[in-house]
């Protein structure tokens, strides 16, 4: 032995079991922090790819831009790529409705416009169109001539120069997207307004750059549009909703850090405090207080050096699993992301949390340990500090002794109780907190419900009822539902309109009885029995019963209304509110009997809000019973064949919408989110379970001698088990109650403060709470099995001799 500090590694290897437990707990905590933070890091990477795929790779758009502005912005050093975009709105191609636009070829890829065949249109009479549209327009080929007509009546002939990859939105809507050259568009509509789409370089402060551009060119706010989702992901958003999400994320990740801290602190505290005697002994033989402190910290260092690499490896492995799952699901989009992601953020978080906590966790008990009087440490057993108050032993009078003692053991060691139960509580809080995100993912992102149609057939004039029967009979068709819809004027109490809607439409006129004059029509949709059943998943309040709706003139309000592609809340209708719908027979009073979060389809024209009712009520209201939409859900096999069969049945007056690509994209989006959010929760749950097991182990291990004494004075094996179990249960139940209360409070705060705009409604998480209870009880039982077995295997005299 060269130095007194060499006692530390000797001690650690002499107490293998205890050392292993402490190392395990540090590993667990580091793995948790590394795992969660790496996952977050990689998640943002994946989301970025996804968002670029869905919305385009640009940061801001300057609208109605002048040539001079283009010059100035385009030559900025912080701009990576920029291009002009012209929206020519709706038009026709060979008589078929289409969407027209023009874009600079250098920016086309950024907007997900990928050339498959031919070349980008450069000449004034060239254009390119989507692959599916080539087929739809009676088999067009490159170099064919087509006739384009604009909304304002201008007609001209163009040559097809290229074909680009299908876009899900246009394909889903059945309206082909057509791109001209910028010069072509300018010539077609002289003086047309151009947009300038800008992508900044990596690492540029976009908020600042945008402000600079605005100031330099005196551009007003309303001329700038942002790619909010992309900006949100790279942390450059100023949107209040996104900032709400940032804050929520920060809170949750702080909780993860605290959880890591508590896990380590708890085991370390137990491990050091139980050795006060040992330190006292060292003091007796001449160790100074400083030396004791040094030894404890040295011990921490050794443990940390062994534990952190393992923890980091495990944390990164968890992240690797998530990446692997995602790449497997979606190799086309995520192909470029490497399978092994070394997340700097995750590693730093894990190492820092591990180091800081171990030092803090060893320093505080070390200080106490070094202060213990040598004499006391050697002669007394008392390992705990108890208040000076007298104690009336009521508990042992009411309860059987072993149970009373179990509770006593837990309750009187206030610090251990606090640490144990708070580490359990924090696990529960984490679980409930991340649960909010799960719900969020479910209700907001998973727009593809079991009934989301693959194919929609729509006709304003009405569909033949035999068509419905015919399609139902096709072998490749899974589910068919029909809808009637129309646009009606509806009014209700003016106070039920949201400020957001009033901002959009401007002044609302109200009548004497508190109603308002509807500025826009509302969408009235009929649902059949099946659809009402399916829609229950989105029900916020009330009920969806065909009978009751028919009986009480019932109507269902829909909370979310799409305005310019964004779902907002336009009304604040409550159950029992009266809605007056303008019918051919005058206004009819309806009662709101249910509120749905959303509907899985969107209206082609802007509406105030959406109402749903039964087919019977719909016909009564509108005196119309023509079916306008048939939604088809296909079976998984032979979809192309079925699609062709359906197309054959239809005549030209009917619009056919193939929504499969769009649905698939939404699903992919959901999976990306879900893998990570569920990943977080699984990691948290697993690690919390391990932590509880480990802490119980440590705690029982620390009481070996005490339990030996109990056996000597006559405690049977069963009583011993009961006592330890009751003690463990006291910890876990205290943690459970505290965790549930705090977790539910956190859920409420997150949802009410940050996520209300997403129409997330907080519900009491009854199922989760029961689930947590069951899991916790199970873990508690499991956690005491092995330490108890070990203790019972040892002879009593063997334990007592070590007194």
């Amino acid at each position, binding site marked *: 032995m060269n130095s007194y500090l060499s006692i530390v590694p000797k001690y650690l290897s002499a107490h293998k079991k205890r050392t292993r437990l402490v190392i395990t707990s540090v590993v667990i905590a580091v793995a948790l922090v590394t795992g969660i933070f790496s996952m977050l890091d990689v998640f943002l990477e994946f989301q970025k790819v996804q968002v670029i795929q869905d919305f385009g790779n640009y940061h801001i758009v300057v609208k109605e831009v002048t040539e001079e502005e283009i010059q100035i912005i385009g030559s900025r050093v912080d701009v990576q790529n920029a291009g002009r975009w012209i929206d020519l709105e709706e038009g026709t191609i060979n008589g078929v409705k289409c969407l027209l636009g023009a874009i600079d070829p250098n920016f086309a890829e950024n907007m997900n416009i990928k050339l498959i065949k031919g070349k980008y249109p450069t000449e004034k009479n060239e254009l390119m169109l989507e692959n599916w549209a080539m087929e739809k327009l009676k088999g067009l080929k490159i170099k064919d001539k087509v006739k384009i007509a604009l909304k304002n009546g201008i007609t001209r002939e163009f040559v097809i120069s290229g074909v680009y990859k299908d876009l899900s939105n246009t394909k889903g809507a059945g309206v082909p997207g057509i791109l001209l050259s910028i010069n072509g568009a300018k010539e077609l509509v002289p003086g047309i307004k151009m947009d300038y789409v800008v992508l900044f370089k990596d690492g540029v402060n976009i908020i600042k750059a945008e402000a600079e551009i605005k100031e330099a060119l005196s551009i007003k706010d309303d001329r700038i549009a942002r790619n909010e989702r992309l900006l949100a992901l790279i942390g450059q958003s100023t949107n209040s909703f996104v900032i709400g999400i940032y804050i929520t994320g920060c809170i949750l990740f702080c909780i993860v850090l605290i959880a890591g801290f508590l896990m380590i602190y708890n085991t370390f505290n137990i491990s050091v405090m139980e050795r006060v005697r040992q330190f006292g002994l060292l003091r007796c033989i001449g160790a100074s207080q400083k030396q004791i402190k040094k030894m404890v910290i040295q011990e921490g260092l050794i443990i940390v050096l062994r534990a952190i690499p393992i923890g980091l490896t495990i944390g990164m492995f968890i992240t690797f699993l998530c990446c692997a799952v995602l790449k497997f699901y979606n190799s086309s989009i995520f192909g470029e992301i490497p399978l092994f992601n070394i997340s700097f953020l995750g590693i730093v978080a894990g190492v820092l949390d591990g180091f800081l906590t171990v030092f803090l966790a060893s320093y505080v008990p070390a200080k106490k340990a070094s202060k213990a009087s040598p004499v006391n440490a050697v*002669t*007394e*057993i*008392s*390992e*705990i500090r*108890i208040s*000076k108050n*007298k*104690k*009336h*032993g009521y508990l*042992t009078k009411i309860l*059987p*002794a*072993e149970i*009373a*003692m179990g509770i*006593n*053991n837990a309750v*009187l*060691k206030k610090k251990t109780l606090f640490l144990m139960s708070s580490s359990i509580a924090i696990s529960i809080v984490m679980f409930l907190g991340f649960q909010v995100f799960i719900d969020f993912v479910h209700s907001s992102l998973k727009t593809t419900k079991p009934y989301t149609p693959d194919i929609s057939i729509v006709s304003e004039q009405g569909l033949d009822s035999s068509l419905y029967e015919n399609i139902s009979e096709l072998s490749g068709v899974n589910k068919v539902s029909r809808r009637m819809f129309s646009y009606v004027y509806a009014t209700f109490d003016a106070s039920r309109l949201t400020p957001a809607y009033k901002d959009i439409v401007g002044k609302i006129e109200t009548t004497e009885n508190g109603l308002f004059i509807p500025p826009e029509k509302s969408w009235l949709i009929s649902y059949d029995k099946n659809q009402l059943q399916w829609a229950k998943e989105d029900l916020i309040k009330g009920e969806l019963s065909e009978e009751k709706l028919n009986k009480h003139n019932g109507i269902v309000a829909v909370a979310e209304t799409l305005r310019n592609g964004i779902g907002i809340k336009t009304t604040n209708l409550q159950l029992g509110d009266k809605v007056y719908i303008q019918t051919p027979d005058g206004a009819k009073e309806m009662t709101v009997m249910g509120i749905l979060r959303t509907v899985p389809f969107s209206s082609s024209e802007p509406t105030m809000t959406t109402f749903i009712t039964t087919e019977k009520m719909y016909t009564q209201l509108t005196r119309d019973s023509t079916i306008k939409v048939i939604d088809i859900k296909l079976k998984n096999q032979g979809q192309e064949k079925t699609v062709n069969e359906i197309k054959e049945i239809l005549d030209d007056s009917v619009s056919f919408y193939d929504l499969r690509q769009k649905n698939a994209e939404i699903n992919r989006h959901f999976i990306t989110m879900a893998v990570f959010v569920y990943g977080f929760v699984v990691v948290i749950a697993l690690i919390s379970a391990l932590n509880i097991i480990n802490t119980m182990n440590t705690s029982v291990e620390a009481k070996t001698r*005490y339990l030996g*004494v*109990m*056996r*000597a*004075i*006559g*405690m*049977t*094996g*069963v*009583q011993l088990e009961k006592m330890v179990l009751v003690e463990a249960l006291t910890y876990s139940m205290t943690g459970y109650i505290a965790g549930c209360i705090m977790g539910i409070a956190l859920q409420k705060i997150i949802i009410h403060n940050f996520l209300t705009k997403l129409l997330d409604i907080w519900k009491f998480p009854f199922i989760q709470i029961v689930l947590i209870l069951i899991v916790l009880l199970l873990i508690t039982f499991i956690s005491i099995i092995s330490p108890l077995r070990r203790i019972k295997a040892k*002879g*009593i*005299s*063997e334990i*007592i*001799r070590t*007194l």
Partner: protein
Amino acid sequence: MNVLVVKNLSKTYGSGETKVEALKDVSFSVSKGEFVVITGPSGSGKTTLLNLIGGLDVPTSGKVFIDGKNIFTMKESELTVFRRRNIGFIFQAYNLVPELNVEENVVLPMLLDYRKPDEKYINELLDILGLAERKHHLPNQLSGGQQQRVAIARALATKPAIILADEPTGNLDSKNSKDVINLLKMCVERYKQTLIMITHNQNFMSYADRVFYIEDGILTELGGRQK
């Protein structure tokens, strides 16, 4: 009547070169109400013998009968119950339960046996041992002597057949030691208990009815103050 009979008791630890014979063929018996002192140098096997008598350890060979029952033929659970009803332990390090107050510590063996403590008797015990005022104190609020008196009360609480005390004064100063031994002796006589006590203290041997001496695992009777 012999309350304790020890027959040919041997205990060996380890094997081969590290083999230690802690007890070699020890036999003796103790009658009811006797105060027996076992003494001997450190490492001679005193604690091993006491542990074996108390059923805390198993012998390599030999038998121990308490109240005529061979304790090593009992199952672990039976032995535990037997122990808490028939044997009271007093340890050198007191070994009180730190979370329980004086009264709870004393009645604990009764409670573990699911019996209702005889309050009159317990109060009497606490009175005799000078703990009446300390009933609701926790062990770490007491002095060493007081703690050991609580341990004595605990050992007496179940009115066991035999009390085993391993250096009960080992941690106490001479005044406290004397008090504790006096009280112990008084209680034993008053409640007609049998006491086997290990001690190094020559002074306390005069209190004993019989004195045994162990050296290198071999027990010899030194005689004592016969009744």
